[in-house]
Structure formats: structure tokens, C-alpha cells
């Protein structure tokens, strides 16, 4: 296979693989930038996947074309509401944020499967219909550009582009708007923010709910585009990969985007690798672990240290120093 062929294979598949991670990692960025550690991302994705699939199965015949979009919307809303639990616990009740995050993960999986059994009388849902999913597209005009056209703009899902767009928007919001400035101030030095008349709890509530919404989207597009159903194994570790992407990206939206894309590339490279003469003779295990080893090497080699927002993990209690 020529390099071009290989790229033409791995880049599109990296794009759809990364999209859910991008959304979810961005959610993590919002939450942690406001000072709330969120290792509940996994759980938020579960809730998103569950909602997306159930909504899709329930309304597909009535909503037609719009079904996938509305499924994602539903997942977004439910994700945001679900994350309120984390917000209440860790902001209002000053819970240890890691503990609360862990609880979120248990609650999400337990609750979702419990409901699936209630609703469908079995442990996993049916496959959603092919008429109610996002389709692969070639972007008009762009896909005709030589070289990058086929690589970047063909055989892709619109959600991947939305993910990248959302990453850029997030960067703008966090670094260019008053809201973003306040968000970061609350995550760095809540007392200072308070003295500047910023409502610390409110900012943190908003941030956590944004992370819930984005996590919900991430989970739903994973389920809608990749697994097409929901079961105990649909979301198994992607949330933690998103967490890794967020840290890898140094709590920065564009960084998180880059990290998520990196994971996607590494993954699809390792699978495509199995078909490249020479590499195919390697024992499979080398290719299976390659993405993770690459990540560690990348971190060690040129990413290096990253500092979390100063106040992340610590509840803000008025009048305490």
C-alpha cells in the first residue's frame, strides 16, 4: 500500500473514532477549568449513549430524518441534568470531587442498565435502524481538492467536523469572553474571584453542567455512529480515554482536540498496520499496545509536565483561608 492509501484509510477512521473523545474531553476541560475535577466523564458518556439509543429507538418512526440530531440533543440535555448530581455533591455539599466522580460512574452504568431491563425486559437494546443514523458524507467542493480532499473531507461523519468546531468555539469561549475569564478565575483562585464579585458556586454549577452536556453528546454519538445499540459494554473506558486526552491536552480545548485526534490516529494506524506487509508479520499484541505506548512516549518525549488549574479539587468555602 502506498503512503497515500494508508493515510486515506487511517485519517477518516481516526476522525470518527476521535469525535466522541473530543466532545467528552472538552466537557472535562470546562469542568476542571472551573475547579471541579470530573472523573465521572465515563458515566456521563454512558448516560449519553443510553439516552441517545433509547430516544432513537423510541421516536425513529415518528421523527425520520431528524432522529439522530434529536437523539443527540436529548442525550445532551439528560447528560447536563445528570451531571447536576456531581455539581450538588461536590459544590454544595463540598464532597470530595474524585469520590463524587466515581459515584457518578457507578450510578450511570447501574441506572442505565437497570432502566434498559425495565424498558425492554432484557440486558441490551436492539440495533437502531439504519434510516435513523448519521450518514457518511463527502463535503461539497472540499472533497474535490486533490490530496486533502479524499483524506479530510470524504467518507466522514458530520459529527466529526462539529466536534472540531466545538473545540474551537470552546477555546474562544474560555479564552476570549468574560464568561471564560470568570470561569478560569474560579478554577485558579476562587477567593480572589469572590472578592471581584463573581459567584463562584454559580460558575462551577454552569461549568459542570456544560461538561455533562458535552459528555452526553460524546456518549450518544459513540452509540449512534459506532455501536448502534446500548449494552453493559457499549461504553467501556472511553470516558477515561477522554480524561487522559484532557490532561494530555493540558486542560486546553485545542490541546484536548489534538490529543483525542492523536488517540484516533494511533488506534487506526495500529489496525491498518496489521495489513501493511512487513508489519503484518508482527505478533498482533505489538499493534494492539502500540497506541498506548505511543501516547506514553509522546507525553514523555515532548509534552512533559502540565499543571491542573490551581484550585481544582478543592471546594470553595467562604470565610476559610
Amino acid at each position, binding site marked *: 500500500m502506498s503512503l497515500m492509501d494508508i493515510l486515506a484509510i487511517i485519517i477518516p477512521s481516526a476522525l470518527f473514532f476521535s469525535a466522541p473523545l473530543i466532545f467528552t474531553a472538552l466537557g472535562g476541560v470546562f469542568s476542571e477549568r472551573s475547579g471541579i475535577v470530573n472523573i465521572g466523564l465515563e458515566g456521563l458518556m454512558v448516560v449519553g449513549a443510553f439516552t441517545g439509543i433509547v430516544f432513537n429507538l423510541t421516536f425513529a418512526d415518528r421523527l425520520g430524518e431528524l432522529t439522530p440530531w434529536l437523539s443527540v440533543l436529548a442525550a445532551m440535555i439528560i447528560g447536563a441534568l445528570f451531571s447536576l448530581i456531581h455539581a450538588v455533591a461536590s459544590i454544595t455539599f463540598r464532597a470530595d470531587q474524585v469520590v463524587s466522580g466515581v459515584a457518578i460512574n457507578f450510578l450511570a452504568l447501574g441506572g442505565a442498565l437497570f432502566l434498559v431491563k425495565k424498558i425492554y425486559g432484557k440486558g441490551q437494546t436492539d440495533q437502531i435502524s439504519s434510516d435513523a443514523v448519521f450518514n457518511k458524507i463527502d463535503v461539497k467542493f472540499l472533497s474535490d481538492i486533490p490530496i486533502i480532499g479524499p483524506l479530510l473531507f470524504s467518507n466522514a461523519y458530520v459529527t466529526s467536523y462539529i466536534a472540531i468546531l466545538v473545540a474551537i468555539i470552546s477555546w474562544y469561549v474560555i479564552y*476570549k469572553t468574560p464568561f471564560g475569564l470568570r470561569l478560569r478565575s474560579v478554577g485558579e483562585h476562587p477567593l480572589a474571584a469572590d*472578592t*471581584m464579585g463573581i459567584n463562584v458556586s454559580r460558575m462551577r454549577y454552569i461549568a459542570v453542567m456544560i461538561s455533562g452536556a458535552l459528555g452526553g453528546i460524546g456518549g450518544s454519538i459513540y452509540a449512534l455512529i459506532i455501536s448502534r445499540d446500548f449494552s453493559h459494554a457499549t461504553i467501556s473506558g472511553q470516558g477515561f480515554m477522554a480524561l487522559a486526552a484532557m490532561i494530555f491536552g493540558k486542560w486546553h480545548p485545542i490541546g484536548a482536540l489534538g490529543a483525542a485526534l492523536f488517540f484516533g490516529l494511533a488506534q487506526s494506524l495500529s489496525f491498518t498496520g496489521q495489513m501493511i506487509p512487513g508489519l503484518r508479520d508482527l505478533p498482533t499484541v505489538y499493534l494492539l499496545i502500540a497506541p498506548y505506548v505511543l501516547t506514553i512516549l509522546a507525553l514523555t518525549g515532548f509534552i512533559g509536565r502540565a499543571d491542573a488549574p490551581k484550585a481544582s479539587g478543592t471546594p470553595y468555602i467562604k470565610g476559610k483561608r
Partner: protein
Amino acid sequence: MSEYVIEMLNIRKEFGGFVANDNITLQLKQGEIHALLGENGAGKSTLMNVLFGLYQPDGGEIRVQGEKVNISNPNIANDLGIGMVHQHFMLIDIFTVTENIILGSEPSKAGKINIKKAEEEVRALSKRYGLAVNPSAKIADISVGMQQRVEILKTLYRGAEILIFDEPTAVLTPQEIKELIQILRNLINEGKSIILITHKLKEIMEVCDRVTVIRKGKGIKTVNVSETNPNDLASLMVGREVTFKTEKISAIPGKEVLIIEDLVVKDSRNVTAVDHLNLTVHAGEILGIAGVDGNGQTELLEAITGLTKVDAGIITLNEKNITNLPPRKITEIGMAHIPQDRHKHGLVLDYPIGMNMVLQTYYKRPFSNNGILKFDVISKKARQLIEEFDVRTPDEFTIARALSGGNQQKAIIAREVDRNPELLIAAQPTRGLDVGAIEFIHRRLIEQRDHGKAVLLISFELDEIMNVSDRIAVIYEGKIVATVDPKETTEQELGLLMAGGKRTEEGVPS
């Protein structure tokens, strides 16, 4: 319409049973600088935090321009034209000066912060009040002095008419203090009124109109500065006589304990901070290093104590070469160190004060025995030190965090002095402390000297240097530019040398 812009009447504030403010009354006249004076932990910050809306009073009332008000949060304080420069700066390191100033009331158009406009406004303000800042610099990269000017700008940006300064000078160099005092005057001329918390009586005498003294949470008395003097104020605040000039017998210098030859150290940004520096400290003397902040003091210290790498030169302690040795080796050879930043280096704030007392010695007998800690021994030692150095804490099991900076500092000094080292390094040992505590600490340093130990004192406070040192070395741009005898020099001369001026034979500045 009363003559007072602010009236705090019988303010009471408790922290879980502990009475921090016990019916304190403070009245601020339009256009005056009103000093608030009290020991560490007397309740000054608490009182001001009440006025600024960070704490809610448990009793009493607040009036602004004669109107009774309820300041339930800082927003309301801002709206009432009250601004506060906090004791522990409220700045966000990773933000720029401008971002810190506009935070919470950002000029924006189409949802985007208009950073250009903001920076212009900041420039205008800093010009008007003579508060030199670089609007686009990150807080982490600017000097403490500039950080404080940023704090002041924050309040002015919000149109504050009444400004509260909580121990603004504790962290400043003499130069910066001079500038600050000028700034305060400008502010008054611009029609502002000021409450100034400070432990430095000299400053009160210099700029303030009236002063309110509080002790252990109770209001003692309010006097016109013109009708009082430092000694009266000191005894009012401490509740006993305080001597300022710590008198001491003249030193009998012995052998050379610390010898530094051609030391070169690079700072974190890898620029030469200590530049071929030579220095010697003898047994039985206190060598004071005078200098403006940022002339290499920090790097010099870290080099001597092994916290940072030496690029060239040799450091000798007790005839042993300690250049680039790990901190523990150096400690064992006989060095103790009262660090500049007590919270960052001095203490493990989440450990009980007792455990902090053995921070460098826990692994040695009698505090531990082949790897097993001996808690009874440690507690005994801790109680002894707490007693001896009068560290105000319920017991040795209280975590260090809950102590006032003043008492935290005493604990550190107790620990370091108790190791009875050949060389004691004291960096800014009295920063932020009240005169009582300062007097106590100075006596301890001199005691060490009198036991024939070498003491290296680094301070930005000239009168501390002048008071305590037997010899003064002036550091400028990483070099020792002069060594003078405190008896034969003047603050003016030192100030000049610290600014890089030359020195003539007669010791009269040219």
C-alpha cells in the same frame, strides 16, 4: 449627613465560638488616612473583611455616608465604593495585569472581551495615580511591588472612594514603601479616604491622621497621630512596654564559618542572578545582607542551602565544601535556614505543629529509632519549643495551617534555632509580624550570635538590618558591592549603595 464616610459601630465577629472582633468601633473621616493597629491575630483583617462583605458580622452595624447598610457580599462593597487591598494578594498568577483588573466587570463588545480598551483604561488609571504597571504582563512574572499596584488599580477601576490596605508594606522593599506612601498621598489628593493596616509605627507617624488600636479583638482606643508617639502606640497595642532598639553587646567575631568564593548562580529563567559573589561570615557575628528585592538574594540563599544548582564557585561551611551538596548533607554539616516563604518552604501546613518541629531531624535519634518514629519524644520536644518560643497554639497536635503567620513563623524559628547550628540563615524573619514578635525574634538571633554561632540575615527592611547586624553587606545585581559597619553608616548611604551608587573613603556618599 455625618462627618464620617464609614462608621463601623460595635462590630462583633465570632469564628466557631472564638471572638475575633469584640464590639469594635471604627469611624473613618472623609479624606483621612486612618491607621488600624494591632498584634498578629488581633482581629484587623477580620474587621476589614467584615467591612468588605467577605464575612458577615454577628453584631453591630455599618454606616456608609451615615446610611445604615448591610454588606452581604463584596459586590455590595464595590457598589458602595469600598475597595480592599488584601493582606494575602487576591491575584490570579496566570492572568495578565489587565485581566486581573477587569475581572468581574469586563469591557466587552459582541461577547468578546475588548482587551485593547481595557488596557487603555488601565494605562490611563496608572498614569493618573502614578501606579506604574505593565498591563500585558503576567502576574507570575512581575515584582511584589507591581502586584500590589495591580491590587490598588483593581479597586480604583471599580471606582472605589474608600480604600482598605491590609498590611500593604509587609511585603515591600524600602523603595517600594516610599513609592506606596507617595501613592497614598496622591489618592487622598484625589479625594479618597483610606484605612491602613500596618505593624510599622514609623509609617503611621509619617502618613496617618488618626489611628485606632485593637488588642485581642477588643477596640482599645482611637487617637490623633499628632498627639501620640511610637512608644505609646506600641504599648497600647501590645499592652506592655516595648523596646525598639534591641541593645546588644558588640560582637566578638571568631573563625570563618561560611566562605563563598566567586559564586555564580543562574535563576529559573537561566539568566545569571548571582555573579561571581564573594562573602564570608564569621562565628559570633550577624552579617546582614541589604539589598533591593531581585538582586540575587533568593538565588544566593537557594545556592547556599542546596535548593538550587551552583554554576560556578565554591561554598565552604566549617571547612567542608558544600557546593552542590543535597540539602540534607548541608543541614547535617551544621546549617539552619529560616526560609523566606514560610508557607511554601517552612512548613507542611497539613501536618500537626509538633510534626513540623522535626521536619529535618525526624530520621535521627532520638526522634526515631531505626526507621520507627518515637512520638512521645517528638511531642515532648514540640511542647518544650512551643513553651520556650511562646508559639500560640492550643496544643502540638493542631495543624500548622490553623496558626497565624506570626505563630507559624515562631514555630519555624524555634525549630531552626533549636538545632543549634554553626550557621543560621534568616531570610525576612519578621515579615508581617507585629513589633512584639519582631522584638522577640531579633533577641533570638542575637542570642545565637552570643553563643558564638554565625548568623546570616537577609532582609529588605533597612532598620532591621541596621538594628541587628554587626556587619552589613550590600548586594547589587548579584555582587556584594560594599561591606559596611552599621555604626558608621546611615540609611541614606545604604539606600544609595543598594541602588548601585559608589562609596567614598570617609563613608560619605558622593
